Every structure is written in C-alpha cells, then in structure tokens.
C-alpha cells in the first residue's frame, strides 16, 4: 500500500452534493499534478436518501479500484446521518472525522464518544448565509481542506469557478468561511 495514499469517505444525502465534493477535490488535486480518484457509491441514487462518495488522493498513480473500507478521513455533510448510519465504520485509528453540526466538538465527543481527530463546522448556517440554500457541500470542502492539508484552497476556488460560473461567488464564500470557522479537536 502506498503510504502517501489518502482515502476519504463522504456521507451525504442525495442532492446535498457529496459526490460533487469528492469530484471537485479530485479535480483540484489532478490540476495540481497529483493523482486522484473520485466515485459515487454505485447504484441508484435518490434525493434525500443516505449515500456515500469516495475520494483517493496520492502522489503516485492509483491502482486500487475497490470500495474504500478503511478510510483515513470521514466527512459527514448532514448531521442526521450520525445516528442513521455507521459513519465511522472502518475509520483508521489515527483517522479524522469532519462533521457538519451546530454543536461543538466537545458536545459531539461526549455524545458519540469518538476517539478520532474531530472537526466540526456549522456548514448549514454557512450555506444558508452564502448560497442561500441548505446545500452544504462546498462549505464541507472548506472544512476538509483545513483538516487535511493535501490540496490548496486556491485550487478549489479555481474548480468552483469552473463548475459554478457566475454562481461561484457564494460557493467560494462558503468554502472560505468553513475553512476559517471549522473547530478542530485532536
């Protein structure tokens, strides 16, 4: 196994942009000259139903073409999924979990007993105030980039311009605000 390989699992619901998040980070990593893969959980997707998306980033070509079973990082973009699904399944002992929640990392830790590096950001509020929609994916990308130093913030800004065109402004604000506001508890 390539020691520089980072595997990330995103937990979202259909329509919240988890698949797009993984893809935009992969695109940014590739634009920086790195190697990356992004893919959805395979199968029918329904709006509102829990779903996963996957991301691998490495300095070398990635041969692994399986599901991600033991992620280095888990990102939960909808807080209701913490109880609905086993979001920490297979998370490495030295892994990190990034959660969209109005609670503090301390509150989440005492509620769920997580022993991983815990990062929490109120992405829903940020999204409502920036893009005026409760779609939390671009804010969660910002939180991810702060916690996992693997792709530059500017590379993502470029991807947001490319993807959202004239609507990129709010998404860039969401990205940067979450990057600044995410609370991290080692």
């Amino acid at each position, binding site marked *: 196994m390539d020691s520089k390989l980072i595997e990330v699992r995103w937990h979202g619901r259909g329509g919240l942009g988890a698949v797009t998040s993984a893809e935009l980070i992969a695109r940014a990593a590739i634009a920086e000259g790195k190697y990356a893969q992004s893919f959805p959980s395979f199968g029918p997707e329904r709006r509102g139903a829990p779903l996963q998306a996957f991301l691998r980033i490495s300095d070398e070509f990635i041969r692994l073409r*399986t599901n991600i079973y033991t992620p280095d990082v888990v990102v939960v973009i909808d807080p209701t999924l913490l109880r609905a699904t086993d979001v920490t399944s297979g998370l490495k002992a030295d892994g990190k979990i990034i959660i969209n929640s109005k609670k503090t990392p301390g509150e989440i830790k005492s509620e769920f007993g997580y022993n991983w590096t815990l990062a929490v950001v109120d992405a829903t509020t940020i999204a409502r105030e920036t893009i005026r929609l409760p779609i939390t994916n671009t804010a969660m990308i910002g939180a991810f980039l702060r916690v996992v130093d693997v792709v530059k913030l500017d590379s993502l800004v470029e991807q947001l311009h490319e993807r959202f065109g004239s609507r990129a402004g709010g998404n860039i604000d969401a990205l940067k605000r979450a990057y600044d506001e995410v609370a991290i508890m080692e």
Partner: protein
Amino acid sequence: MSCRVALEASHAVAEAVRMADVDVIAAYPITPQTHIPERLAEMVADGELSAAYIPVESEHSALSACLGAVAVGARTFTTTAGQGLELMHEVVYVASSMRYPMVMVIANRALSAPLSVWGDHSDVMSVRDTGWIQVFAQNNQEAFDLVLWGFRVAEDSRVLTPVMVNLDGFTLSHVTEAVILPEQEVVNSFLPPFHYPFVLNPDKPATHGAFAAPDIYTETKISQEVALRKSKDILLQGWQEFGDMFGRHYRPVEIYRVEGAKTLLLTMGSFTETAKMVIDARRDRGELVGLVSLRLWRPFPFTEFRQAVKEADTLIVLDRSISFGGQGGPVCSEVRSALFSEPKRPVVVSFVGGLGGRDMAEEDFGYVLDRGREVAAKGSPELFETVGVRGEVSGIRDL
C-alpha cells in the same frame, strides 16, 4: 501539447469519440453507460461535435441505425450495457457479418434476473461469438485510448470489422481520474478520414447483406472467420503505431511481474489493477507470483497467451461471469482449451468472482492466490469456486 485533465471514464470515452470526429452516433441510454450518450448528446447540441445524434427508442434500433450510417460511409459510434446489449443481440451479429466497421463501448453490466445494474462480464460474454473485435480497458486512460485505436483498426480496409471496447460498469464508468488528452492534430494523423470502400450509392446500385442459400452461406462465414483471425496483425500494428505516437503501449496479453513466476493469476478489465497491488505485496514476501491479463479477447491471442503462461506451474483464472452448466467461467473454459494441446502446460484453477457488482477487495485476490495454489497442489479436481459466496453451494466443488 497534450493536456492532463480529470475525467470520468464515460466522459473520457465521449472525448475520444469527439476527437475521432464521428459523423453519426445512435445510442439508447442505460445504466451504467448513461453518461456516455448524455455527454455526446450535449456535445452535439452545443456544437462541440459536428455529428448526427440519432435518439432511438431501443438498442436494437440504435445498432440498426448505425448499420445504415456505416453503409453510406459515416464514421459511427454506439454504446450500451447489460440488458441493452441483449436487446441489441440480433443486430450485433449483423454488424460484424456485414463487415461494417464502427466502435461500440460496453459499460459492462450483469444480466437479469434478478435485475442488477452493477458490473460484471455477463453481457460481453453473451456476444463472445458474434465476430466483433473485443478489447478490455483497465483504467480511464485506456478507455480513451482504445476508442481511438478502435476506429483506426476497425476502418482499416484489411479489417473492416466492428470493435467493442469493454470498460467495467461503475468501477470504471463512474470513476473520475486523470486522463491525458492528446492534441487534435496528433489524433488526426493517427486516425485518417474514414473511406468505406463499399459505400451505398444510388448511381451505382449494390446490395449489402443479401440472402444466402446453402451453396454460399458457409463461404461467407468462413471468409469472415479468416478475416477476423488475420485482423490480429493489423490490431498489433495499430497498437505499435499508437505507442509510437502517444507513448502508451498496449499488447494483446498484458503481463506483470511474471519473471520466474510459478503461479500466474489471470484477470480482465479493471480488476487487473487491484490485482497488481496484491501481486506486488506477495512478491515483497518472496512469493513467485505474477499476473496475466487479456486485453484482446477476440480474436483470441493464442500465440501470445501460450507464450505468457508456458513457464508457470499454476494458472489461476478469475472470471466475472458464469457459463451455466459448463466449466464455470467462459474465460477459464477458453484458456483450458487453448492449452490442451500444449506438451507443457500449467494446472488451471477456475474462480468466479465480482458478479453483479460484488466488490473484490485486496484480501479477496489474496484468497484466490492462496486457495488456487492449494487446489492446484491437490491436482485440481474441482470444477470452479466462487469467491465469497454464501449458502449451500458446495455441490459445485464435488463435481
């Protein structure tokens, strides 16, 4: 300058079709192939690709429309998967028998019932004997490359046979990764304009695909068979020229760490890449294992395959489909028969895995290697074994 971009495999296919400057696309969307026709329809609608996109009501019509397009000399593309290929089946034979060159991409999918939209190789194995040239991609770059190569060799006047490019549904079709896109000028020099030699023309009437009585049918079929076998040299030449031009080299049988290998694992498609990681790990532990993968499935590369496996004691074949009531997997069956007349040949052990999208993790490949050697050591009495299957299935082993 070529450029390195992030592309989903489906979109890489669409880029290759665009750069090949096709004239006609007729396709019906079906999971997991959907993103390919979707992107092509968008390219045509946005004026990025000057082609006729024919939206049809079924896959049978999709390929039928393609036949008509090639008959008037159009560079033609279609794509399907799983049930779509089944519905198209009748016309699949017609395309190759009429020697109509085109490229069809299959995003490989399991067959009903029970309904499964997920990947395996049941669909392509059902058209194994239809006379198409059939190749497998292992990653997104290869999906792009093989489409370009496919047009080049299919349209060669010595080949005039359609090419089927297989890419695994979901595990390739829906994955975004880096792909190197060449300059349009380089593509143009690799892929000259299509000149179909028998274009239908009202001023020079001719009949294609006529009725054949028993006194001529055999000759038409054997001429098709001879042409397909002879096409192999052109396919290899096409890969050679592709490699010279683009720097990526393809072979009909790909080998990986086979030096001194006592045991070889044989895979096809995207599973090959994960398998390479397992081979690396085992080599690091000093095990003499290697990997062989079939890129070219039809015409079957007998010489290259026999050459690749002749020094091994054990050959473990992993199929992604079942030949019901047969030897287990169709690939294993083919491989056993290809080796039968060889004076020295490895013991062949058959596994079936990855059906209907069932993932094969690294541990699963490890299991196949260990169990395969164990079975071979006992003289391989078993017909085949299915990786990770649950329930009362031991009867298969007792056969």
